[in-house]
C-alpha cells in the first residue's frame, strides 16, 4: 500500500535507529511524550521502543479520545439508550468502556438496548432515514480529526429535515489537553523533554496551534505521522532540537499537515459547534474551553437537550490509575489492577479498552518485557 508500506521499512528503521543511537547524548535523558494514542499503538505494535537507546523513553500522552472520556459521559449515553429507547449509534471503540456499576454500552446492548456500532456518520444518517419512527442519537466522540465528519452529518440532517437525528456531543480540543499537561508538568507532574505532536488532528488544525508550547513552556514539538518510521524520524528531530538547543514546532508529517490545516473543515466546525465553557476529561479534570457542543443554530439537534436523563453519581473504579497514566506520571505497570483484574477482556479503565490506550497496548503487545527471554530448543 502506497504511503503505508514505505513507512514501515525495516531497513530504514535500522538506519534511523543507528542515527538516533549515534546522536543521543548519553549523559542525559530524552523523555518524549507521544501525544496521540496512534503513536502509542505504533510504538507497541512495531516494537519501536525496542529500537531506541535506553535514555530515550516514550511517555504516553492523553491523546486517546476514548481514554479521556469521563465515565459520566458513558453513563449519560447509556441513560439515553435506556431511558428514551433511542437507537444509539457509536464507533466500535466505545462499546467496552467501563461505565458506573460495572456497566458498559456492550452490556447495555446485551440487555436489550438498541445500540449500534457504526463505521461512519453516514451510517447514522442512513439508520435515521431507515427508521423514521425511531429517534436516532449519534454518540459523537473524538478530537478534531473526528469532529468534521460529525459536522457534515449535522448539516446533512438539517438540510434533509431529518427529525429523528440528534447528536450526543463529546468532541474535545487537543490544544487544551496539551496545555493542561504542560501546565502540570514539572517536579510534581510529568517530566518532559519534548513532544511528538498530533498526527491526524494536525491535518485538520494545522501546525500553528502548537506555537505556544516552545513559547510558553520551552519544549520542542515535532508533529509526527503515525507510521513507525514517522515516529522514529520525529524522535530523531526532537533529539536534534534538544541537542542543538532549539525549541521549535517542526513538522515531520509534511505529507498531510500544513501550517494552517484544513480550512474548509475548520469553517464547518466553527459553524456547527461552539466551545463549551468547561468539560471533564478523565485524568485531567474539568478543563475550560476544552470541548465542543452544538452551536445555537443547531441546538435542536443536541441530544442532551432533546432527551433529558436522570443520572446517578458516576464512580470511577477504585485503584484504576488511568488519570495518572493519561497525565504521563504513571505507567500501566504502576497500576495494581493491571493484568490482575484489568485486561482487555475485562477492562476496569478506559486505557485498557482502546487499542490506542496505553494499558491495552502495553498488555497486548508489550508483556514480553515481563516474560523470561525465550530460549529456543535449537539455539
Amino acid at each position, binding site marked *: *500500500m502506497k504511503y503505508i508500506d514505505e513507512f514501515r521499512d525495516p531497513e530504514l528503521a535500522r538506519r534511523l535507529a543507528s542515527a538516533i543511537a549515534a546522536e543521543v547524548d548519553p549523559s542525559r535523558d530524552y523523555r518524549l511524550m507521544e501525544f496521540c494514542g496512534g503513536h502509542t499503538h505504533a510504538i507497541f505494535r512495531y516494537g519501536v521502543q525496542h*529500537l531506541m537507546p535506553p535514555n530515550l523513553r516514550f511517555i504516553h500522552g492523553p491523546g486517546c479520545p476514548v481514554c479521556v472520556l469521563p465515565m459520566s459521559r458513558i453513563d449519560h449515553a447509556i441513560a439515553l439508550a435506556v431511558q428514551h429507547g433511542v437507537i444509539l449509534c457509536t464507533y466500535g471503540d466505545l462499546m467496552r468502556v467501563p461505565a458506573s456499576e460495572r456497566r458498559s454500552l456492550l452490556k447495555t446492548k446485551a440487555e436489550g438496548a438498541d445500540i449500534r456500532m457504526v463505521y461512519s456518520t453516514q451510517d447514522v444518517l442512513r439508520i435515521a432515514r431507515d427508521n423514521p419512527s425511531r429517534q436516532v442519537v449519534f454518540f459523537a466522540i473524538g478530537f478534531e480529526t473526528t469532529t468534521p465528519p460529525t459536522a457534515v452529518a449535522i448539516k446533512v440532517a438539517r438540510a434533509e429535515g431529518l427529525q429523528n437525528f440528534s447528536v450526543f456531543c463529546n468532541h474535545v480540543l487537543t490544544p487544551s489537553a496539551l496545555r493542561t499537561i504542560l501546565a502540570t508538568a514539572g517536579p510534581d507532574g510529568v517530566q518532559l523533554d519534548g513532544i511528538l505532536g498530533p498526527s491526524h488532528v494536525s491535518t485538520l488544525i494545522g501546525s500553528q496551534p502548537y506555537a505556544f508550547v516552545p513559547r510558553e513552556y520551552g519544549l520542542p514539538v515535532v508533529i509526527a505521522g503515525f507510521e513507525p518510521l514517522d515516529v522514529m524520524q520525529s524522535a530523531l528531530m526532537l533529539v536534534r532540537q534538544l541537542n542543538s538547543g532549539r525549541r521549535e514546532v517542526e513538522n515531520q508529517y509534511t505529507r498531510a499537515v500544513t501550517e494552517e490545516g484544513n480550512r474548509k473543515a475548520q469553517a464547518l466546525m466553527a459553524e456547527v459547534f461552539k466551545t463549551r465553557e468547561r468539560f471533564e476529561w478523565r485524568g485531567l479534570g474539568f478543563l475550560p474551553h476544552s470541548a465542543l457542543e452544538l452551536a445555537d443554530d443547531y441546538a435542536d439537534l443536541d441530544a442532551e437537550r432533546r432527551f433529558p436523563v436522570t443520572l446517578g453519581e458516576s464512580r470511577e473504579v477504585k485503584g484504576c490509575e488511568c488519570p495518572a497514566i493519561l497525565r504521563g506520571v504513571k505507567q500501566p505497570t504502576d497500576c495494581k489492577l493491571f493484568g490482575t483484574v484489568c485486561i482487555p477482556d475485562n477492562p476496569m479503565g478506559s486505557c485498557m479498552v482502546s487499542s490506542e490506550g496505553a494499558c491495552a497496548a502495553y498488555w497486548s503487545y*508489550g508483556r*514480553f518485557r515481563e*516474560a*523470561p527471554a525465550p530460549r*529456543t*530448543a535449537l539455539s
Partner: protein
Amino acid sequence: MTTDRRFPVRLDLKNGTVDMSHGSGGRAMAQLIAEVFQKYLNNELLAQGNDQALFMPPAGRLVMSTDGHVISPLFFPGGDIGSLAVHGTVNDVAMAGARPLYLAAGFILEEGFPLCELVRIVESMAHAANAAGVPIVTGDTKVVERGKGDGVFITTTGIGVVPDGIAISGDRARPGDAILVSGSMGDHGVAILSKRENLSFGTEIQSDSAALHDLVAAMIDVAPEIRCLRDPTRGGLATTLNELAHQSGVGMQIREQAIPVRPEVAAACELLGLDPLYVANEGKLVAICPAERAEALLSSMRAHPKGTASAIIGEVVEDELHFVQMETGFGGSRIVDWLAGEQLPRIC
C-alpha cells in the same frame, strides 16, 4: 418428478417462506424434508429415512467433532453458510489427521426465511459434501419464530477415522518444533467483512472456505510425525497459536515477514484497523512438526493445490508463560496475544 401421495401440493420453492409448521413435526415438516433436504442431500444413508443413520465404520480410532454455523451474511464471496458448514466440520475432523466419513446436519430456521434461499444453501451443502466425499447422512430441522433466529443456523457434526500410527493433538508441540501455515491468512474474515452493511468495501477477496482433509492426507503421508494440526478460524492465527502454546505448555516464536498475507487483506485490515493475524480463515491450517521434518512437510503442502502458499512461520520455544512472540516485519519484537473481545462477530 414423482408425486408423493402425502403431499398433494408441492412446496413453493420460488416464492414460499418457512413457517412454524415446517418445524412442527407434522406433514409440513415431512414435506420440507422430502422436497428440500432429501432431494438435494440425497444419499443412501439419508434415504434410510430414520431418525438416525446406520453404517459400518472402517476399523480404527474414530474422531467426532461438531460446529454451529451462524455466519452473517449467509451468502458471501467464495461460499455460503451451507458450504461453510460442510468445510468447517470436515476440517475439525481432519485436524486429528482423520479421514472424514460422515456428517450430520441440524438446521434452525427462522420463520419467514425464503425457501429459495434455503434451497440455495442446501444445494451448496450437497455440492460441498459431494466434492469432499463426505455425505450428510442424518439431519434435523427446527423452526423458531421470527426475531428468535437469523435466517438459518446450521450445526454440523462429523466423524472420521484416524489412520494407525497417527497421533495429532494440540498438546504435543515441543520446543524446537517448526510451525507452518498452509497459506495466506485472513481471507475468509475479510471477505465476510466486505459484505457487512456498515463496513462494505470493494475487493476481489474470496473466502478461502475449503475442505482440507485431502491436504491433511497428503501431509501425514509425508510426515506422519506431525504433532499438531488446527484450523485458525475464529480468533485467527494469533489465537490458534496461543491455544496450542497453552495446551502444550510451550511458547512460540514467529516471524511476521514469514506469514503469508494477501495484499488485499492487508489493505482491508488497514482500512478497518484490524490485524490480519486475528482474522478468521476457513480453508487454512496450522501445523506443528519436528523441525527435521519441516522442509519435507512444507514441500508436500506446497505440492497440494490447497497449500501452494504454505510457509514455515516460526518455531516452538520453551516459555513458562506460554507467550506467542513475534519478530515484527519492522524489526521490533512483540507479544501476539489471544484475541480480546470480539474482533469480528458472526464470522462462521
